[in-house]
């Protein structure tokens, strides 16, 4: 790979002229001081990584750069000139574009329209043919094949993210901000994206890159800035930072990268799936899962891992094959039924499918098992709800002043924790985790991993769907690899390495 | 019997309540009532209150109820609510308020003191039959009715009266094909009139006893160049009908004076409220410029009293222009 080339680039980024400078920025939301006197300089031809725990203020800073929020204090300089960024449109005129943490697509517009939606200079008349062609070309440079004519509604999160990226690089930007662009990409797509980011850097674009995946950060960044609690802790060239020291800066103490989970003793057989399929989506999937076992699902975007989860949870029931749960053959037709059988599914898309954002943390956590919180008259015992939520707040260290806060007010990672709490609260026997650490910081990730270990030790069977390959490898007893809706392999703990998994996931292509 | 004298100069709060606001005939009635108010030197201002058309029933009930709360002296209602107005009218009457209906009565007559009838309702049926016969000629022919809404009490009464009149052998050549409703909206009436042409084959006349319906039907036939095959008649306002009478689409139609109706209603209500007359059959009084009127039993309803204004004015090519002025 070309990451050594990045290290050896002549000149060094620190000498390049600054394009965008943020000085002494502060921003307050009610009681939360989201940003406190932070400064950051983005230079042409430099990839600048921004690290910090969930809620450290990364997204807030980005939204200030793109004119979504106005800072309470501080100034912004573009090429040395102070500017005010009053709106997203203004930011765009200044050549600042962002890929937000949560994809912001237009579900009714087709993929090509989505990519070109913020282009102001494409003339009066839409040249559909040209637009489709260019969209396809841009996606091809990303290594993604999508039907550019189909509406964005119903795209998987990863596909949505690809469109977001295509949208940003289609603009001729001077500053490109990427807020966790890789959160739902698998290793293959990440590689493709990085090639592209480096190309852009070499063309003199300043890039701000936010990610919770340490190994990625050190693969691509030229310099690294760390935030903690809304304050700037350090800005250093990447060469001078080690993952350990960066994590120490982030959390304020020493902490290791995640370790391989110690294999636990297997319990009795919990789930047996034979020839499962859904017409046109996936087919012929067979596996067993024991109590206390973690079965990882690996594969590229759109490989069909999520669809298996949805079938087991009854959202999109399977049309072929059989499911044996606890020794009984079951046909799962609805989520309700799945829940009564002890199945829980933590969705990959927390905004659209996972959470009711305007509602409180406690209301979200109690939702699937609301009946547990009812008096005999069917009224809700809110104090009991609160107690449960408080319990999870402590257990998963959710950063929030209180559990009555609407979930929308939390940072992305903390929202993810609320969603996990919600499903843990159902006391499942079979827990399907779809991208459970998407967008959460190293500290929290470690906590989630520890929790997965604990839950498995308690005898819960866990299906772990994740695009974070190291995570899958570290956590799983066995790994099931999917490709284009078909099951390619089930690799035992020892046999599963990134090499073997990727080979299975990509067919001959990877080997070539 | 002796005429009771209606002496002016007393202060009586009076409310004139049309079916709804915004339609010419009711405004004319309002003019007539104002004229009477001036003549009678009533120091209290006449309140002309009405609901919106889509809220007519609930609105009329609300206005009557509020009038009762305020304790006005008399209320004059052109009832659009059928018997649904009865509870509120009764409540008003129980508070000593005189309830006079005009243009359209309360069908059961409950809660009503007296109805000022523009014309005799059975007479209306006969007039419509006569106009049909005179337009279609001795040989008669098929015709259909374009009414306002199925809920309009006076329309229904007139149509019933016409059906009754048609039993007379004199009209044996006239054949009623059906009734259609245009809801007193020009666009609905227009579309209904057009549709009638297809629905009723051989139809030679549309009888529209509604001032909105008749104009719309005439315009529809004119637009479709059907005026020589299908004629229009019914009840209409001369100024609105002028063009169609002149071009032969609507050779003959009828109406009464709404100004006079408002004038007479005011006199009646005022006479009742000041105690000049009692609401009982046989009472009579002099209504200013219109002369003497008497209260009689209403022969067209099972119960109730009425004062009959009359007569109809028939309009055709000879007099329509003068009346339209």
């Amino acid at each position, binding site marked *: 790979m070309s990451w050594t080339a990045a290290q050896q680039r002549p000149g060094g980024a620190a000498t390049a002229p600054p394009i965008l400078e943020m000085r002494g920025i502060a921003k307050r939301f009610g009681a939360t001081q989201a940003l406190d006197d932070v400064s950051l300089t983005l230079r042409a031809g430099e990839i600048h990584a921004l690290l910090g725990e969930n809620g450290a203020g990364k997204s807030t800073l980005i939204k200030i750069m793109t004119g979504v929020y106005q800072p309470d204090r501080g100034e912004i300089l573009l090429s040395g000139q102070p500017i005010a960024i009053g*709106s*997203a*449109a*203004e930011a*765009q005129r200044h050549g600042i574009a962002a890929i937000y943490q949560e994809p*912001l*697509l*237009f*579900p*009714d*517009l087709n993929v090509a*329209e989505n990519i070109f*939606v*913020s282009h102001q200079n*494409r*003339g*009066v*008349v*839409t040249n559909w043919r040209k637009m489709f062609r260019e969209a396809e070309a841009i996606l*091809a440079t990303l290594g993604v*094949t*999508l039907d550019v*004519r*189909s509406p964005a509604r*119903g795209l998987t999160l990863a596909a949505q993210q690809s469109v977001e990226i295509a949208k940003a690089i289609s603009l001729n930007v001077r500053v490109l901000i990427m807020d966790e662009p890789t959160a739902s990409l698998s290793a293959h797509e990440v590689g493709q994206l990085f090639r592209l980011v480096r190309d852009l850097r070499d063309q003199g674009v300043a890039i701000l890159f936010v990610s919770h995946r340490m190994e990625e950060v050190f693969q691509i960044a030229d310099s690294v800035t760390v935030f903690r609690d809304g304050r700037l802790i350090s800005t250093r060239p990447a060469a001078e930072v080690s993952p350990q020291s960066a994590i120490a800066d982030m959390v304020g103490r020493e902490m290791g990268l995640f370790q391989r989970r110690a294999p636990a003793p297997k319990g009795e057989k919990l789930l047996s799936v034979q020839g499962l399929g859904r*017409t*046109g*989506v996936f087919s012929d999937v067979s596996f067993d899962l024991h109590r206390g076992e973690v079965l990882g699902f690996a594969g590229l975007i*759109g490989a069909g891992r999520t669809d298996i989860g949805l079938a087991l949870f009854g959202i999109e029931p399977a049309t072929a094959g059989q499911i044996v749960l606890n020794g009984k053959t079951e046909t799962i037709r609805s989520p309700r039924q799945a829940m009564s059988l002890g199945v829980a599914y933590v969705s990959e898309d927390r905004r659209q499918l996972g959470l009711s954002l305007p509602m409180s943390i406690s209301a979200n956590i109690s939702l699937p098992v609301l009946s547990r919180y009812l008096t005999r008259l069917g009224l809700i015992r809110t104090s009991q709800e609160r107690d449960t939520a408080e319990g999870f707040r402590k257990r998963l260290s959710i950063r929030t002043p209180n559990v009555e806060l609407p979930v929308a007010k939390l940072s992305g990672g903390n929202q993810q924790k609320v969603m996990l709490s919600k499903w843990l609260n159902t006391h499942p026997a079979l827990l399907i985790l779809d991208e459970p650490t998407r967008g959460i910081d190293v500290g929290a990730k470690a906590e989630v991993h520890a929790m997965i270990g604990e839950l498995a030790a308690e005898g819960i069977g866990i299906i772990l769907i994740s695009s974070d390959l190291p995570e899958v490898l570290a956590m799983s007893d066995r790994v099931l690899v999917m490709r*284009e*809706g078909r099951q390619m392999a089930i690799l035992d703990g020892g046999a599963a390495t990134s090499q073997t998994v990727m080979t299975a996931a990509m067919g001959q292509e990877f080997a070539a | 019997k002796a005429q009771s004298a209606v002496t002016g100069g007393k202060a009586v709060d009076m409310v004139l309540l049309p079916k709804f*606001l*915004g*339609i*010419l005939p*009711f*405004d004319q009635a309002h003019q007539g009532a104002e004229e009477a108010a001036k003549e009678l030197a009533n120091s209290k201002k006449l309140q002309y209150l009405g609901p*919106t058309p*889509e809220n007519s029933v609930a609105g009329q009930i609300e206005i009557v109820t509020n009038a009762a709360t305020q304790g006005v002296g008399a209320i004059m209602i052109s009832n659009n609510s059928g018997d649904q107005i009865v509870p509120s009218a009764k409540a008003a009457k129980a508070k000593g308020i005189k309830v006079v209906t005009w243009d359209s009565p309360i069908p059961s007559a409950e809660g009503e003191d007296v109805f000022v009838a523009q014309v005799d309702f059975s007479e209306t049926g006969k007039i419509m039959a006569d106009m049909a016969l005179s337009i279609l000629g001795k040989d008669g022919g098929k015709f259909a009715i374009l009414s306002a809404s*199925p809920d309009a009490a006076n329309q229904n009464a007139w149509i019933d009266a016409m059906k009754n009149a048609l039993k007379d052998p004199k009209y044996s050549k006239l054949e009623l094909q059906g009734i259609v*409703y245009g809801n007193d909206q*020009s*666009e609905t009436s*227009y*579309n209904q009139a*057009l*549709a009638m042409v*297809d*629905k009723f084959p051989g139809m030679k006349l549309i009888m529209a006893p509604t001032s909105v319906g008749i*104009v*719309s039907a*005439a*315009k529809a036939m004119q*637009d479709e*160049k059907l005026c020589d095959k299908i004629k229009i008649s019914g009840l209409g306002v001369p*100024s*609105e009908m*002028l*063009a*169609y009478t002149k071009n032969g689409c609507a050779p003959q139609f009828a109406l009464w004076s709404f100004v006079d109706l408002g004038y007479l209603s005011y006199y009646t209500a005022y006479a009742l409220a000041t105690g000049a007359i009692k609401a009982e059959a046989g009472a009579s009084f002099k209504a200013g410029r219109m002369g003497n009127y008497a209260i009689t039993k209403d022969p067209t309803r099972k119960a109730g009293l009425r004062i009959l204004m009359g007569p109809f004015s028939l309009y055709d090519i000879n007099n329509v222009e003068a009346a339209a002025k």
Partner: protein
Amino acid sequence: MKWLQRHIRPEQVRELSLLLLIVAAVLIFGSMIDGYYTSRTFNRITSSVAIITVVAVGQTLVVLTRNIDLAVGSIVGCTAYFTGAQLAAHHGMPPVVAVLIAMALGCVMGAINGALVAYGRVPSIIVTLGSLAIFRGILIDYSGARTVTTDSLPKWLLELPRLNFVTIGDLDIRAMFALAVGIVLLFQIGTSFLNVARQFYAMGSNPDAAELIGMPARRIVFSAFVLSGTLSGLAGFMFLARFGSITVEAARGMELQVVAAVVVGGVNIFGGSGTVFGAMLGAIMIGTLEQSLFRLQISEFWRDAILGLLILLAVASDAVILNRLRAIWARTDLKLVARDSASPAEAKR
């Protein structure tokens, strides 16, 4: 078939399905009613649909941006009355000026609504529920309960509804209908080929995102209401020409007819999808049902019940057809994607 599926989306095929439903309705009614297949039937339906269609075009634009304009009935009524009053007072007024007056008045009223929604940030349903009443109230005060009568209007205006655009064999295409179709074509082409039109769809599809990426969100919403108002003004002029005598009650309740046409025509009431052409088909569908039901020899009192049922069935069968189409499309999509991704080199070419 593959080519078809790549170039036509299910949403476009839905319009075809609506068209098929209309044809089916016509065939069914034709077998039930003697002398149904005449130029007169055609004329009745087209004339009755023309005005609704023009208003529905504007409504579609508003609904696309995730708003609704319930004031259209009042705008049509006001412009019809006001233009009529002006024409009655100035007989010599050239036709073009009359049309412009109507459109300008509608434009102003639409701008008021649009400003309140876009810049005042008041939800459109609240604004237009309010202005529906206020515009009508102003009209009633202005008119003093008088009616614009047919014979006070200039002759050219009254001839207008009878004017033929073209005559094809037996069929007369009236100028008013041709005008409506022309407007539909204009806006259909506009909404599919103008870049600004993308913004209308984007706004309705995801208003938050639209704002976040810096679209002129307010201007888009504002212009949708202005266009809706202007088209309603034009419809007001057509209304005046067609019905001649205009009371203050003119076009009351038209908003519901228009919304029905738009909904039946497949425009998503929550914005983002649907076409002007679909709205026209919706209007034609309802117009056909209404006019044809009248011709059936059934009691007047049965009509609404049957009409309600038929509208429900039209919407339902349309949805079912659309869902089936989507399923077919989705299945082939996956295959296409699968085939492409199997040979990335080919895709890159």
